[in-house]
């Protein structure tokens, strides 16, 4: 197995080097996307399939589409530059030395194992029964360290607000649907399936790999597919319902935390019998917010509409 690991590691490093050194920006982006997929593969091998799912869907998929879209909106040849190789000049040489030393030190540091095992992790696994979900990662995200997740929803929302302020949507591709009907047909076939997978992932998050983030990402992927195939597009107007859905994840989270203070006596503590329903409610609202936010981050517009609708 180490051989496969070594191969993966080698490929990852080569792709990373390619991503940095490629003269053409497009090649760099492609290298980055492939690297993301390989990374996801390696995470599966490291007993983190749910993270691999997230990386594949968000880190490689959505980000990849965004990178490619941005590349297309740049003037031709923009961003193509020759990155000096380590031996081409004093500064690259120095930087390479520094980075190499740092990488070696990091490697050594990553191999240092302390005597005692991770205290927090053990505690999390011990208290899993009280968390209302069976899946440890979901338990940490939505219960043990729910505060982090809530703040993270804030990050997502603010990145979205910032993006919308810029008013620079991705360029729309008008030719693609006209050229061939195949993608549209495929999309029609696959879309219900994708939606179903997404919802299942959210639901399954409580018991097995999956969860609000992965499910949300897949739902967002479905949305991206719809847009790419010309069924929907970004809209310059938004409505309060959409905004409420966007803010909904954080809002439900906050309100559940605040309103239950009198009942449980602590913030973000849920009453014994209601843990699982509350978890599910939070998961779905989070997933919806995440999906919509990622989709709007992709289109760069405040609203969405069906193609051709005004």
């Amino acid at each position: 197995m180490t051989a496969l690991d070594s191969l993966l590691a080698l490929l990852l490093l080569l792709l990373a080097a390619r991503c940095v050194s490629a003269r053409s920006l497009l090649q760099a982006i492609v290298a980055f996307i492939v690297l993301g997929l390989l990374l996801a593969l390696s995470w599966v091998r490291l007993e983190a399939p749910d993270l691999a799912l997230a990386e594949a869907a968000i880190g490689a998929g959505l980000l990849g589409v965004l990178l490619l879209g941005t590349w297309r909106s740049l003037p031709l040849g923009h961003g193509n530059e020759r990155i000096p190789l380590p031996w081409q000049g004093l500064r690259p040489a120095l930087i390479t030395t520094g980075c190499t030393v740092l990488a070696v030190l990091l490697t050594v540091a990553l191999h240092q194992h302390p005597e005692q095992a991770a205290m927090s992790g053990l505690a999390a696994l011990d208290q899993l029964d009280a968390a209302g979900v069976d899946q440890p990662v979901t338990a940490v995200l939505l219960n043990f360290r729910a505060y982090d997740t809530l703040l993270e929803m804030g990050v997502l929302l603010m990145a979205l607000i910032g993006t919308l302020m810029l008013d620079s949507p991705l360029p729309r591709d008008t030719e693609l649907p006209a050229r061939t009907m195949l993608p549209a047909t495929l999309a029609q076939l696959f879309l219900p399936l994708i939606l179903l997978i997404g919802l299942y992932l959210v639901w399954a998050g409580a018991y097995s790999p999956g969860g609000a983030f992965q499910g949300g990402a897949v739902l967002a992927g479905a949305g991206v597919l719809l847009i790419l195939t010309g069924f929907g597009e970004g809209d310059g107007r938004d409505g309060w319902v959409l905004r409420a859905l966007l803010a909904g994840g954080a809002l439900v989270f906050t309100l559940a935390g605040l309103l239950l203070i009198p009942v449980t006596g602590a913030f973000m503590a849920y009453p014994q019998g209601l843990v699982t329903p509350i978890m599910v409610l939070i998961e779905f609202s989070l997933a919806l917010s995440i999906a919509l936010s990622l989709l709007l981050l992709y289109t760069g517009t405040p609203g969405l509409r069906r193609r051709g609708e005004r």
Partner: protein
Amino acid sequence: MSMLLMLIPALPILLALAALSGQIGRHGANVGVMLTSALALLVVLLDPAPLALPWLLLGTHLALDELSRVLLFCAALLWPAATLAAGELFAGRDGRRFGMSWLFTMAGNLGMLLSQDLASFYLCFAVMTFSAYGLVVHKAGNEAFRAGRVYLVLSIFGESLLLAGIFLLAAEGGNPAVTDIPEVFAGMDRPQLAGSLLMAGFAVKMGVIPLHVWLPLAHPAAPVPASAVLSGLLVKGGLVGWLRFLPDQETALQTAADLLLILGLTGAFAAALVGSLQQRPKTVLAYSTVSQMGLLTVPVALVLGGRAETQTMLPLIALFAGHHALAKGALFLSVDHWHGGRWRQLLIVIAALGIAGLPLTGGLVAKAALKSATAAPLPLLITLSSITTSLLLLRFLQQLSADPGQGNRLPAFVTAAWGLVLAAALLLPWVLADPTVLGYALSGAGLRDAVWPLLLALGVALMLRRRRLPTIPEGDLVAPIECALRHIKALLQRSIGAIDPQDLQQRLIASVRPQRRFRVALARWSMTGEQQSLAAVAIIAMVLLLLLLLT
């Protein structure tokens, strides 16, 4: 009751802030100063218990001590008299600025007398020093700005010495109260360093030669009432500082204290002689202050050097300082009163000769007290100093009478306030001095010692009246220094071209202009890569460097 102590500096500060926003006129300032002074008098009479305000600044202690009680009394008389005399200065275009400086100076002055901990004292002292700059340059002419410049340079010099000393103290004992000072010094490795720094820093304010040069420049340049408080009250800040923040009887400071003693005595004579050759009455008075402060330095130096008992010296230091504050304040104010009639002229003559030690005046008592407590040869020297002092004050009277004056009529209450200060100057020492001193002052020997220097001085003055005397420029030592600086500047100009402060800044900026153009270009995104990648490289370097230092 003790809260009164807090009100005294607080009230003028509030007034000053009101003045800053232009919300206060001449009357507001007058009423405010009166009120503050009334409070101060109340405090002097009631002598309230010390007040500790741990929440204020770094923990403030306010209290009266033997010296500050007398000086606060003098301040409570002199500030209103000077404020009334300032009258018109509070009005008009520059009135706001003057009012602000005036009130802040007053707040600093009164606060300094009351504060018994290092931080508050320094704060008040600094406020007083820097606000007074506004008073010195108020007339805004070339002379005023020159005087202001010299004042500022010396003040900053003094303040930096002080700060250095204060930080040494603070490092040892945080923000020590006055009562903890001996302990703090005892715990220090090098008490003489901190002690000398503080001694020198306060010496600037006291006008100890050769740090006195700001006095003869600032006094004639400032408006008359400002000179009165400057000479009467502000210079005493140095005295208070010496006595509060230097340990008495500390052997480590003996050398420094002896040096101070010598400088004080030298100043007492030299300043009087230089002053006798001056042209303008206010300059003469300024030198008189330098001379008198030199005399006052003597007992302080004796105490600090451990050559005299603190208990015996402190009352007479207070007596001398209080008398000088009132008399000098009154004399400065009298510059406006000389042409107001014979009675006033007589009063002025008495006040002037009082400082020299005319029999039956407070000045005689003050000097007698000083002589009674010192060992030979100091009494003789003090008696001799009466000669030079008399010469100086005769010169003052002569120049004052020669001065054409403005001849404007002053309102009655201004005169009344001035008269009150004058009367207090004459009477105060009689109240404060103890019976043995009074006995000596009234005895035959005492009277003889008082009269002969005066007569001698009068004779010399009459003899020299018709002679052409050499003149010494105001601010004596400043003139050669300025001259030297001018020469150096001229030399530099010849070698590297004209230097003018404004131009210098332009050139400093221009010298980096090419780089600036580069930076402007860099400000465009396309070019900023350079600066940013340097920062990025620094990230790697910093991680490695920190790691190196952490392991």
